[in-house]
């Protein structure tokens, strides 16, 4: 299980991902977004809904 990969430069901090997260696992302030690894179940709802494709499902997070 791998949590979504997050690309900050593509993020508008709109919070749409927070609204569909079943685990309340995304923290969003004005210009910071953090996925709480302990809570995330990798359901990918946030990846699906993100209007800017700032979140991505990837298996190779280590190299990023």
């Amino acid at each position, binding site marked *: 299980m791998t949590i979504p990969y997050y690309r900050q430069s593509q993020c*508008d901090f*709109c*919070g*749409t991902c*927070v*609204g*569909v*997260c*079943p685990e*309340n696992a995304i*923290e*969003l*302030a*004005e210009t910071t977004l953090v996925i709480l690894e302990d809570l995330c179940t990798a359901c990918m*709802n946030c*990846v*699906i*809904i*993100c*209007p*800017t*494709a700032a979140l991505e499902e990837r298996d190779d997070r280590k190299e990023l």
Partner: protein
Amino acid sequence: MIEKNYDVVVVGGGPAGSMAARAAAHAGSTVALFEKDREIGIPVRCAEGVGAKALGSLLEIRPEWISQRISGVRFIAPSGQSVDMANDEIGFILNRKIFDADLAKFAGDSGAHIFTKTYVEGLFFQDGHVAGVRINHLGHRMTVEAKIVIGADGVESRVGRWAGLHTQTPIHDMESCAQVTAGNLEIEPSLITFYFSHEIAPGGYLWIFPKGPDIANIGLGVSGEYSREHKPVELLQNFVHRHFPRAVWLSTVFGGVPCSKPLESLVADGLLLAGDAAHQTNPLTGGGIISGMLSGKLAGETAVKAIRTGDLGRHFLQEYERQWQPEAEKQEKFYKIKEFVFNLRDKDFDQIAAAVLSLPAEKRTLVNIFRKALIKKPSLIFDILKLFT
């Protein structure tokens, strides 16, 4: 300076939060409103359309709020066929930067304390009741106690969930949106335009809301059912480049609109939810300014009543849910219409457009027919369909 305790703490400085803070402060409570961003009213994650009559029923309208007066609606079918409709209500495209700032100022004028750049990190509980918030204000962390907390923290709401309410939006009920405010457009400024087509906005629609003679909000929403493969950012770029190649992109914004059924519960012990945080939108159109303002006002008033009686528990606060019930019933009905409309295929839209065009212009009040007929009797949708096919 932030006090250690208030009667009412409001989380979020949009229209719902400001109306809640204003109502509570006006009725004599001490109120703090916390906004996570540095400025009220920015960014504008909204198409800014509102009905004139509905807005006027809540506030005395100020001319500075109005970018453009709207007197008609144009639908564009997937075939490109254009259908102009008689409009049953005058509308406004607002300037939300000014509007939101004014609403917050009204709350402040009534005595509420407003703090921007203040992030609510969590709730503070006492004996199982919500009894305040934990905040981060410019790096300084503190707990602010409150008799009642009102969560008006938008689509990204976490406040309700911290209190055990089920506010997650089902993925198929979230509209993933992108919008540009663009200039140098050739448009009809008194008309709002909607495009329906699977190619342009799957499981949603595209809107053009004029803000002046050659400037408009152009945006689209895509249902979560389709937004993995069809990203709003790309669909918007494609549309604008094709339809308005000379457009000047002045501002781009992204966001989500909960277009769901009403929430089962809007209150917990010591907590009320209002606005997008409570999914109080029209699920068909995604509109939520008026319902957010109304629910904020009701939530603020209920909070003060609860504080006066000394009963801060959810049973007393359900008074707010009872007051909201007529709106919740409308939301329920618009949800059914949404399910129907977004299940239409492109060829259905084309057939409906052709049928409507064969009617004389003054009878083309589709919105009116839908609204009046379906609110009264949802099964009428089948009769209406026969009318158009």
